[in-house]
């Protein structure tokens, strides 16, 4: 039923922020086609009268006491960061040159 093209895989990979090599795009297009065709069978029984469930247990808002607690030591958190400077995460420039 569905057909997932190379372009579609490339578009979704861009949305998911994953660089794919051309051969990965080719392979995924074929694999996802088979998988999506198989899982589309949910539509056989998902009729309009059935409500959707997002969670296994009925949940309402959960609150706890607003008690101040010590945060994680900054040095421990930054120790495993890819880059850090002045007690902060160092990240690449956010905006590209347009």
């Amino acid at each position: 039923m569905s057909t997932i093209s190379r372009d579609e895989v490339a578009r979704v990979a861009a949305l998911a922020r994953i660089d794919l090599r051309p051969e990965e795009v080719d392979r995924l297009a074929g694999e996802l086609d088979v998988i999506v065709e198989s899982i589309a069978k949910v539509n056989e029984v998902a009729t309009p009268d059935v409500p959707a469930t997002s969670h296994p247990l009925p949940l309402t808002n959960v609150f706890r006491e607003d008690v101040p607690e010590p945060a994680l030591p900054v040095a421990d958190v930054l120790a495993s960061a890819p880059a850090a400077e002045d007690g902060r995460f160092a990240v690449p420039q956010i905006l590209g040159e347009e």
Partner: protein
Amino acid sequence: MTDVTRLSAAELAEALRKRELSSVDATRAHLDRIAAVEESVHAFLHVSGDDALATAQDVDARRAAGEEVHPLAGVPIAVKDVIVTKGMPSTAGSKILEGWIPPYDATLVERIRAAGLPILGKTNMDEFAMGSSTEHSAYGNTHNPWDLDRIPGGSGGGSAAAVAAYEAPLAIGTDTGGSIRQPGAVTGTVGVKPTYGSVSRYGLIALASSLDQAGPVTRTVLDSALLHELIGGHDPRDSTSIADPLPNLVESARRGATGDLSGVRVGVVTELQGEGYQPGVLARFQESLALLEKAGAELVEVSCPHFPYALAAYYLILPAEASSNLAKFDGMRFGLRVEPEDGPVTAERVMAATRGAGFGDEVKRRIILGTYALSAGYYDAYYGSAQKVRTLIQRDFAGAFAQADVLVSPTAPTTAFKLGEKLDDPLAMYLNDVATIPANLAGVPGMSVPNGLSDDGLPVGFQILAPAKADDRLYRVGAALEGALQAQWGGPLLAQAPELV
């Protein structure tokens, strides 16, 4: 003295309590065993020998001083690498987290440390728990101790293999669609997925938040009960954690071990047998049913007509949730950072390069599938429909549990397959979880108990499911079946496994 690595956790705990054995000796025996068999099994990604021995020493000193300690104090344990451990690597089987040292402990790890269980190390797994064979680990295969050419199940193949190979008496697993129970089945060990919300998810690297649940991996039903009681219970740091106290699991296991199941209604699920299940798996299942009946249980046939749709719903819900949960691996705050080969080095391009280089094939496949299922124009047809199927599955369970106290099925349709056999066929791999997935969609607890060998000489598992918050029923029925089977075998099933050294 007998080889302490062959003792169950309960036996080990008893020997420690009586001070016939020190925790240092018990821990050292397991570290020696790890050193002897890891080359062939590769269950561990990280072995923390010094840390474990320091804990053991501390427990021994406290016991010697007459201090009251936890009953499992000094019993070594292995932890699946998807669970964060302060000061100890936690990769979730992924290159993207290689070298990351978490600055905090998961709640269940805090409880393990507070109780004084030496942590032997972190166990191998499919990357981010995506898989049924542990072959999707970025750090190599784990081998099934029953046959080193075969898979140990997944995603928690490392924890199951470690316990089966006597490298640890206890291990922690996580089960999103069967990742505790299916490895249990194919390695001849016990695995329990508790009721959703009964063991804290704080500090579990999330795969699918509405499905994930940590639980015990052990060689006996009683050991699972002991560990489940230690790690379970309410945690204010997990908003989905159940506030009610746990039922008495150890007592239920001991009660089951008496062998009397009078008054227990056991529902045999029509849809979880037949086509696709190996003849040897079905034969062992029928024999186990007969044993339960002999113990006084009443067998009833129950139908769950929407279970055949569970796998499809799962492979929409899981990738959808995973695509969101794994967005945090972006190369900014922890783990790998890779710069694009050419062009400007902007944050978004670094994210894409990092994720392209750091994620393995199955992770990419599922993130892209999930992103697709959630994207504009497809949401209602895929994710929306899958959520409706989830309702239908929950209704099936409600109907079935009106007729039976527990439901049973084979845990997995086949015994362990050969390494590499299904690696190029994602759909065939997904079919391993056909019997375990419904429990995750409904949040109900499940257990796998080893119930014999198939015609190929490999272990088979028997799955028991109970209503939410009635985990105690698993332990009663599981212990009764275990006792009846071991009486037939003249000992545990694992005694029939080949020696590794």
